[in-house]
């Protein structure tokens, strides 16, 4: 074991002596994760519109008019859908909130001086307090439009006043004192309106907003807990990608170093020494594995303490070990295919870049089109990213972690066996 450790230590020392290798293994992945994480965080100045689902259960002229005003508002990107789908979209985090315009919305919308304010149901995750406040304010702003419409249309205003006078007459809930005041006031108001004059004075309905028709809207919030399936932090996506770049750097570096041992002749020294071929291969594999674990540890330390990425530690260890095994196997396989440093670098670069492209090392898996996601299943990079994401934001159970872990370990074991069988150490 001491000899294997000596081989590993030598390779790690060699890695750190190579400034370019250190840069591409440790620094570049961090830069990658940081830059892309910052871009995906939204600091690049993109649209701030909140994606909402809107359900119109009322289907009246007023409700449709209100839906139209939501659609036209800069604050929202609207998806018109059914109640069930709207709730599902919010639970899955695909939309920030849903607005439901219940039956009767249109009737209340018309009643400026009587009845209740039009109610709108807003479904949003209780943790999204900031968005909830923003949504309520934006809706209220839209709700004010109904007063503008009423006061700017004398005919509609007159009609509305007639309806209100009739309602007040029939109502038993309104105190007699109020009734007489309103019966005195509203006809005068109607008279004014008929003279084509508007009025902007307030109405004394007290603090009870629920019964106050002068409230623009009655916003009723519904808690819709989001099933946390999406990343909470853009770095949660870019850190696994950065890790993959680092691991790919390790694989390329160690595959080259294994071939280099042959071309330099140092492999001949190793073979002639009292050390078995298994120990030589194990030493190289342990070096590659250790470098990978080191780089994963470094990136996740930075991710945790600086970028605010949170993860499940035991699952992260599982992901790191599984991807380590996978890529050590691939390193051995690539090294067995080539006889020169140039050819091993070419083979390894080409394969890993292709696997990286389809596997999500450049574009996050979840934004890929369906056909590309299907192809990505053949890339070990995809499974490594899925395993790391499982430990960060996919909230995988241990059973769910087993899928990427077993795939990675299987690829690694098969590649390692093939590689160690095919590699000719003595071919100097």
């Amino acid at each position, binding site marked *: 074991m*001491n*000899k294997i450790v*000596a081989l590993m*230590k*030598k390779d790690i*020392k*060699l890695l750190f*002596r*190579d400034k370019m290798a250190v840069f591409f293994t440790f620094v570049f992945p961090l830069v990658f994760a940081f830059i892309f994480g910052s871009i995906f965080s939204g600091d690049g100045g993109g649209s701030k519109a909140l994606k909402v689902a809107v359900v119109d259960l009322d289907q009246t002229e007023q409700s449709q008019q209100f839906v139209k005003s939501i659609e036209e508002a800069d604050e929202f990107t609207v998806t018109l859908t059914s109640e069930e789908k709207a709730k599902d979209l919010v639970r899955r985090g695909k939309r920030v909130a849903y607005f439901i315009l219940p039956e009767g919305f249109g009737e209340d919308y018309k009643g400026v001086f009587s009845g209740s304010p039009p109610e709108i149901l807003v479904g949003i995750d209780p943790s999204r307090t900031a968005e909830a406040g923003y949504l309520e304010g934006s809706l209220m702003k839209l709700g004010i439009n109904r007063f503008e419409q009423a006061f700017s249309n004398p005919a509609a205003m007159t009609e509305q006043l007639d309806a209100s006078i009739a309602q007040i007459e029939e109502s038993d809930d309104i105190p007699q004192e109020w009734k007489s005041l309103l019966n005195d006031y509203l006809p005068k108001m109607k008279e004014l309106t008929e003279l084509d004059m508007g009025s902007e004075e307030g109405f004394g309905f007290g603090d009870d907003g629920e019964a106050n028709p002068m409230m623009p809207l009655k916003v009723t919030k519904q808690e819709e807990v989001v099933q946390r399936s999406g990343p909470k932090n853009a770095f949660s996506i870019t850190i696994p990608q950065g890790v993959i770049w680092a691991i790919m750097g390790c694989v390329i570096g160690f595959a080259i170093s294994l071939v280099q041992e042959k071309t*330099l*002749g*140092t492999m*001949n*020294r*190793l*073979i*002639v*020494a*009292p*050390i078995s071929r298994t120990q030589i291969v194990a030493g190289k594999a342990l070096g590659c594995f250790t470098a990978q674990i080191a780089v994963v540890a470094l990136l996740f330390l930075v991710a945790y303490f600086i970028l605010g990425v949170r993860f499940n530690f035991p699952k992260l260890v599982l992901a790191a070990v599984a991807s380590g095994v996978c890529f050590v196997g691939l390193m051995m396989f690539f090294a067995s295919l080539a006889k020169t440093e140039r050819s091993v670098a070419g083979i390894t670069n080409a394969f890993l870049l292709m696997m990286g492209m389809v596997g999500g090392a450049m574009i996050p898996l979840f934004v890929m089109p369906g056909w590309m996601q299907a192809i990505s299943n053949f890339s070990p990079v995809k499974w490594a990213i899925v395993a790391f994401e499982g430990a960060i934001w996919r909230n995988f159970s241990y059973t769910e972690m087993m899928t990427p872990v077993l795939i990675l370990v299987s690829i690694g074991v098969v590649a390692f066996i093939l590689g160690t069988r095919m590699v000719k150490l*003595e071919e*100097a």
Partner: protein
Amino acid sequence: MIQVESLNKRFGNIHAVRDVSLKIHPGQIFGLLGPNGAGKSTSISMMTGLIDADSGSVSLSGLKPQSKEARHKIGLIPQSIALYEELTATDNLSFFASLYDIPKNQLQSRMDWALDFVGLKDRATDRVSGFSGGMKRRLNLAASLLHDPDFIFMDEPTAGVDPQSRNKLFDNVLELKELGKTIIYTTHYMEEAQKLCDQVGIIDHGELLALGTVGELLKQHGGDTQVSISSDRGVKEFKSSDVSNDLIQALQTSDKVYDISVNSPDLEAVFLNLTGRQLRD
């Protein structure tokens, strides 16, 4: 003792080593002399257990070269500079020493000795990438001596080396002989073989053509000495197997002698006589 019996090795259609047999006694310097591609390195590779022979056998004091025990006795100085250039001289030696179970309390003294032996003690902490070709060759030798091997295989150790380092390496080889080591030295420089080796094997196209001490080879295959006398009677050139007698006779017939040139046969001539071509063809 190193005993090689009927070694054969083929690489595809090329018969790299054909029926090579030889015996090397302890404490001897054995030179394997031949042009590039003659089969020297392949022979050494089989003798050190680096590659397996197709047929034949190698015994190092009764041990197979692939055995762990034999590996502790083998010191291989490969033809290439088999060092990690980005590590320091000490890092390199420390790593190679770690493969040989050298007790920790002896490790530093062995490294110091090896560096001192090749004249690189003052460059111990320098990276190998900054060394000259000759220094790298010397460190290449040092790295093979850390475990105090009995059998030292040197595969063209002076290739691309400056005269100063070459002389230092020659001194090292002779010192190792004094220490009782058995040395197998391949080269295509006949001067090196002639200067260093107790016994020489001449190899070409994988075949061991001749084997013996330098004197024996010269006598058996070197041919006659070439004598040239320039006198008042003109220039006379002849081949001689008994130079002193032939010279006396030739001088007696001349009144004035201007120049005498005697060219004794060397290993180049031996190779020429054996193969019909120059060693460096």
